[in-house]
């Protein structure tokens, strides 16, 4: 604004108000007075440094200050100045002979205590200019999608993370040779609180106190940084273009990752990150508020008010993929218990069954391909849960809803699900004769079967009784599972049992293939393809990798591992048609890799063969040379011997002469 005054000529115009006139006059006065007293310091050359922090002194006491300064410098053996120019405010300019001396002096005097009360700061000209300069704007270099997802195409990049509290290294599991091999070796990370992979495996997220940062691409470089104080949880959109961050109290922020900017801020108390749900085609975001359901639309996430629903007591919402449904669950005190599916295209509500009994809680699960929906209902009587039911509904037949169910007359502690192939496991504690809970669990296993005629059926796969393990982890292909106990300071910590679901006589049967132990186990995780299983213990820094049946592949107790994860993968990398082709013609594809596997499994044999080939090549070269020499001197040989070896006319065939005589009889 002050520059505008100079540019524009206001002299012809009259100042209209009186106040403005007064203010201008005062400014003119003040400028002269204010600056008259203050002396100006000459700080223009490289040979001088600026000192700040000296005590404020009158003109009379200035020479005393100077001597005190000199004494201070002598005491600490600093370089003495040549000339000094003091101020009343406690600032001085010291000059020296050389540039080097000046810089040295500045480094020495900086941040030193002149007095108990005064701390000195020293600057050279260069350092001031660097402080005053603003950093250059570096535009964001975004990685293309191919680069971020390049690790999927390379089979050797199916990596795990192993880290030793500050060093990150990515490795891949070579299951034929039974060892872990390096992909990226020991990259140093800054200090962080928490670490996780994004659901598609593109980004590695590090949480720190004030921000969270994303690493990715081939070399695990820093890609993006976002500021959010005390951030604790994240939710990614299915295509990983947007992310919602939550700080644990009440603030949600929606970000656009590629453009690194905030889109929306939402404040809501007493909720969690699970109240936000993205739809699978990335176009809508549903938020579960107290009054009802609010819907936001990508890419800017404005609220779409015509799509909002007003329902009381919403506890859980889920989008159903490949359809237009949104499943809603409502229950609570003085609220009608409802489970229904809202169809957005037709604006219809499809109701689940009527529920007339008292309910403790309801949970809803949706198939990843949108063919069925399952609910877990806990029934209550006199404030005590006495039964739980598991219901599965077919989405192809909604009028009326076809539902298959099974009940257990006990309070189920946990449910473990696998939603790609439809597997459930319910666990509850066993009770002894006096009806007191013990330390042993039973697991009920179910699977959802699709039949062309009968529709969808809930099959029981049997019970596993008397188990010391309290958790069940499904593999992503649904055929294998592992039961694990990770509770600290319990006598059963470290127990692992592997199981398998197989078909016998057109019926599904479970069997346990192995039960082992890993002392002080604290982490356990299946890999995203469901073939390998990792167990790790924090205390003992040991890592074990198992195959899906329970065979131990890798054991590592030497490297000090503090955290380990599998890198996530999307379920489908290929389109549907190509996947079908692969499944039908799997034999022709495996032939390509048979040779490679053979080389690893029969290493000794192949090494021998290779050695032989090298030796024979070398020797045949040598022999060919000799043969040349032999052939070249054919004429000389003929002369010396007297006849030609290769001329067939010079040979005579050997005839056997059998002498026979007639003996007089």
């Amino acid at each position, binding site marked *: 604004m002050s520059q505008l005054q100079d540019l524009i000529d206001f002299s012809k115009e009259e100042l209209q108000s009186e106040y403005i006139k007064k203010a201008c006059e005062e400014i003119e006065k003040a400028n002269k007075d204010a600056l008259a007293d203050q002396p100006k310091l000459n700080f223009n050359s490289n040979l001088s440094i600026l000192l700040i922090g000296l005590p404020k002194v009158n003109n009379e006491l200035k020479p005393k200050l100077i001597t005190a300064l000199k004494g201070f410098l002598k005491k600490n053996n600093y370089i003495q100045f040549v000339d000094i120019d003091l101020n009343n405010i406690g600032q001085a300019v010291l000059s020296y002979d050389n540039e080097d001396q000046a810089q040295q002096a500045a480094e020495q005097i900086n941040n030193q205590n002149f007095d108990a009360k005064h701390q000195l700061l020293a600057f050279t000209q260069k350092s001031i200019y660097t402080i005053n300069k603003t950093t250059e704007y570096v535009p964001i270099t975004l990685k293309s999608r191919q680069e971020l997802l390049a690790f999927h195409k390379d089979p050797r990049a199916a990596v795990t993370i192993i880290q030793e509290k500050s060093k990150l290294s990515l490795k891949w599991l070579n299951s034929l040779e039974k060892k872990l091999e390096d992909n990226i070796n020991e990259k140093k990370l800054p200090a962080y609180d928490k670490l996780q992979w994004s659901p598609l495996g593109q980004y590695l997220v590090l949480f720190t106190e004030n921000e969270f940062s994303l690493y990715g691409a081939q070399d695990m470089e820093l890609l993006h940084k976002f500021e959010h104080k005390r951030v604790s949880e994240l939710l990614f959109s299915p295509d990983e273009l947007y992310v919602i961050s939550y700080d644990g109290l009440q603030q949600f922020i929606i970000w656009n990752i590629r453009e690194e900017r905030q889109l929306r801020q939402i404040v809501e108390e007493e909720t969690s990150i699970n109240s936000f749900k993205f739809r699978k085609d990335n176009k809508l975001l549903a938020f579960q508020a107290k009054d009802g359901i609010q819907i936001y639309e990508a890419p800017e996430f404005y609220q779409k008010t015509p799509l909002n629903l007003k329902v009381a007591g919403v506890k859980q919402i889920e989008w159903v993929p490949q359809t237009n449904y949104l499943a809603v669950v409502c229950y609570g005190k003085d609220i009608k218990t409802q489970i229904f599916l809202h169809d957005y295209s037709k604006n219809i509500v499809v109701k689940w069954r009527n529920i007339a009994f008292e309910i403790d809680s309801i949970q809803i699960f949706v198939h990843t391909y949108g063919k069925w929906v399952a609910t877990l209902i806990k029934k209550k009587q006199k404030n005590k849960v006495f039964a739980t039911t598991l219901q599965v509904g077919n989405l192809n037949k909604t009028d009326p809803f076809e539902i298959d169910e099974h009940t257990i007359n006990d309070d189920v502690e946990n449910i473990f699900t696998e939603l790609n192939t439809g597997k459930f496991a319910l666990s509850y504690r066993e009770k002894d004769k006096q009806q007191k809970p013990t330390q042993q669990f039973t697991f009920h296993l179910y699977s959802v079967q699709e039949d062309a005629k009968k529709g969808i059926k809930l099959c029981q796969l049997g019970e596993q009784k008397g188990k010391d393990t309290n958790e069940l982890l499904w593999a992503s292909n649904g055929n294998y599972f592992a039961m694990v106990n990770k509770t600290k300071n319990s006598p059963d910590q470290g127990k692992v049992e592997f199981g398998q679901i197989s078909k016998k006589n057109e019926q599904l049967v479970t069997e346990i293939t192995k039960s082992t132990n890993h002392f002080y186990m604290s982490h356990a995780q299946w890999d995203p393809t469901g073939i390998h299983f990792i167990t790790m213990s924090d205390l003992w820094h040991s890592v074990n990798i198992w195959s899906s049946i329970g065979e131990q592949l890798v054991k590592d107790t030497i490297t000090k591992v503090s955290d380990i994860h599998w890198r996530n993968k999307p379920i489908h990398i290929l389109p549907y048609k190509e996947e079908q082709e692969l499944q039908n013609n799997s034999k022709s594809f495996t032939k390509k890799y048979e040779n490679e596997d053979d080389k690893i499994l029969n290493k000794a044999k192949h090494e021998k063969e290779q050695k032989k080939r090298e030796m024979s090549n070398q020797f045949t070269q040598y022999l060919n040379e000799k*043969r040349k020499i032999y052939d070249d001197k054919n004429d000389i*040989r003929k002369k010396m011997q007297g006849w030609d070896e290769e001329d067939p006319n010079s040979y005579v065939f050997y005839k056997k002469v059998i002498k026979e005589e007639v003996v007089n009889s």
Partner: protein
Amino acid sequence: MRPFHVRGTDRAIMTVKINYDGDLFFTASQDGGINCWLTETGERLGNYKASGAVKTLDLTDNSELLVSGSLEGSVDFFQINGGKSLGKLTADMRKAKWVEFSFGDENLIIVYQPMTSTINYETRILKVQEILDKIKLRQTQDVLEITDTLITPEKFKTTQASWGYLNQTIVMASTEGELLLLSYPQKQEIKRVQVHDGEIKQFTFAKDFSILATAANDGCKIFDPATLQLLRQFKYEVPMNAVAISPLFNSEQKPKPHLIVAGGIPARETARTKFQGFDIHICNVIYEEEVGKLLNPNQIGPINALAFFPDGKGFITGEEGGYSRVYKFDQTYWENDLFK
């Protein structure tokens, strides 16, 4: 395969030789008798009487002359057809170690221990025609007439001296494990190499002079005859006495890079130890590995001599008890992958 054996003496056999055409073979034993056999049937055709235990033998290519060197200091000449002895050279010799005709049968090398000194073994080259002419004039010859002498270098006890390719070089082996290369008409030493720890018992060339194989107490080693560079080696615990290289070594149609080594512990120690090591080893030179072993359960003593058929279809061995066995390869040798 089904080998058959022939036996002409009680005493040990020192050498075995096959003629150029491959229908006759000769065995020489310690009692001074040289026997002549047919290879197909094993029929004995005749007997030549030499003076003293015969150590070496050689024939001409046209199968007319036979030369033998004995341990009593004489070199005998025989006519093969008929068995007539043409004459012998005796003077100034204590023991004859090696006799060999050159390529083309013009010259003859003789390695012997002279009467005067016991340290140096001398080698001499004589012209065959001159000797034959002189022998015709007189029945025996007391004084060796020398046409061309080769005085061996200092401290070199030769056990064998052979003609190299096209008679341009001579290779000599010593009792201390050294090999020496000489150029023939110039008689200049090209190279001298320490090769084995002990005595080199025998060495042979391949048919086209592409490699050279030695047999000693360590085992068998293979060299390049032009530069004496080590190419391959086979180690054995038992001392090896004889070596033979297949004539199909470098052939274009059916190459068989094989080599036969045989030996065993000396006869006087057979009663002391259990491990005797009398087997015959067939080795593949290119891959440096052993392909097979042959062991006869009736074998009493070590093998002293080996000779390959000139078409590579079999070989002949000479043993301690006067036996010599004839082996012929059967179909597995030609068709099986092991023997390539």
